[in-house]
């Protein structure tokens, strides 16, 4: 367990090595959030039937920026390690590659999420004082985001493992990432989707990655259903990962590394 903590620590220290780059990485989503909020201001000016008020939409996107760090990331380094044969060195070490990468990515994502949270919660407190952020809801939000992170990482990892058979799998992973972003509510709050679609989506893991966590933190949704559904999907993707990993070990050859 301690070795995984060290990997987590290395990821954090690595991110801090190039601070300007880290700053840009943390705030690149800020432009997107600000612009999307501006579009919604323009839209709600001409609309009388919007399911959310403009302040709710802005708070939603600010909170979604935090969930984005923990659910929407690129683990291209896993594919590169497999393709270049670097994963061989991990196979020889007394660590499991899955947990190694899980800890490493968690270091990067958590750091990014914390930096964003500090800034964005300050903005919410100053400009949207009516937003109800109670301690219990914040704790619930943290718990559900941990589940969301594990689900997202495991599912991305399954796609990355396909690199054992195919030369370039980042395109397949990106197809999944775009679908995840659309259906989780990062692009558009799910309240704007037709109600039948929302009902169906509820049983998939996607709304529990962004849309419902933003409702949990503002006290509009309960933690239990999200955790139950996410746990179920984590078990599914974890079993899938084990299956792919076992067959990949039979297919893997590393020559001249």
């Amino acid at each position, binding site marked *: 367990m301690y070795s995984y903590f060290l990997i987590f620590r290395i990821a954090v220290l690595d991110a801090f090595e190039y601070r300007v780059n880290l700053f840009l990485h943390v705030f690149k989503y800020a432009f997107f959030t600000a612009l999307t909020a501006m579009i919604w201001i323009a839209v709600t000016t001409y609309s009388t039937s919007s399911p959310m008020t403009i302040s709710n939409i802005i708070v939603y996107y600010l909170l979604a920026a935090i969930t984005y760090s923990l659910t929407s990331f690129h683990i291209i380094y896993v594919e590169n390690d497999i393709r270049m044969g670097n994963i061989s060195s991990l196979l020889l070490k007394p660590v499991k590659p899955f947990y190694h990468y899980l800890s490493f990515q968690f270091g990067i994502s958590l750091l990014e999420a914390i930096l964003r949270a500090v800034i964005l919660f300050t903005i919410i407190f100053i400009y949207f004082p009516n937003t109800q952020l109670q301690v219990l809801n914040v704790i619930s939000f943290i718990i559900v985001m941990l589940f969301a992170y594990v689900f997202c990482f495991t599912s991305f990892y399954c796609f990355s493992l396909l690199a054992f058979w195919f030369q370039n799998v980042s395109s397949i992973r990106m197809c999944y990432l775009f679908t995840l972003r659309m259906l989780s509510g990062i692009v558009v709050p799910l309240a*704007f989707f037709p109600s039948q679609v929302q009902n169906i989506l509820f049983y998939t893991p996607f709304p529990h990655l962004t849309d419902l966590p933003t409702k949990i933190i503002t006290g509009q949704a309960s933690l239990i259903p999200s955790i139950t559904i996410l746990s179920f999907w984590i078990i599914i993707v974890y079993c899938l990962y084990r299956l792919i990993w076992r067959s990949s070990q039979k297919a893997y050859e590393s020559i001249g590394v």
Partner: protein
Amino acid sequence: MIMLKTLKKYNTIFWTLRRMHLMRTLEVRADFYFWAIVSTIWTIFNTLFFVLITNVAGEIGGWNIHEIYLLLGVFNIADAFIWSFFYHNMTRYTQAIFNGELNNYLLKPINTQFLVMTYSNNYTNIFRFFIGIGMVLWSLQVMNIVPSILQIGLFLVTLLLSLICLYFTWFILSTCAFYFEKLDNINEIFPNLRRMLQVPRTIYPGFLAVILQYVIPLALITSLPTEVLLGRDVMNLIVYFFFFTLCIMYASHIIFQYSVKKYSGIAN
């Protein structure tokens, strides 16, 4: 005569590089098809975003639904260039500064800025380009607009100006990599600003509108060519945009010449 010869030489280099990258793309065809699917899916999701928005309100910033779709069509054309050309070259450029590979560019007997800005490209976004053209044609048909030859010519000129302005502004920003170590994420700024290109320039309020139209005219990149097709009177803005683009091109040259003196190429 000498200038004509030089232009011919640069033209040959430009198209040789395109051919080279086409051959490279065709080498890994499955990857090309997958990325083409990714690009198409992204375009569909992005359009879906605006379909959902226009379900809520009939118009955005005074533009009706079909005008917005026309704007999105122009955006998709511009976006195809952003991902096929600009992003690849600028990523390569900032990485080359960091790892010392810029030496290879500097040693070539041609203009370094030209080589840096035209070296790389890919063809996976070609479907996005065609989707964009399709959306433009469809929107014009729905609105019963038949643009004149002059309008089409002006549309192509403004679109070209927009792409040049965007690319040279991006280049200036990426040149900051000479001053900071490892600045890969600087190339993520423009892709994240693309939301700005998907909406009409009229949505920006007061002071922000002035900045985004005259100081950093990102709001004009797609709005201006679209307004030309819609037959709106934007001649003054086109003239302004033309001179602004010339200034940006010149500024990029000066900034690059100045910054390249800071380069030590140690990592190489």
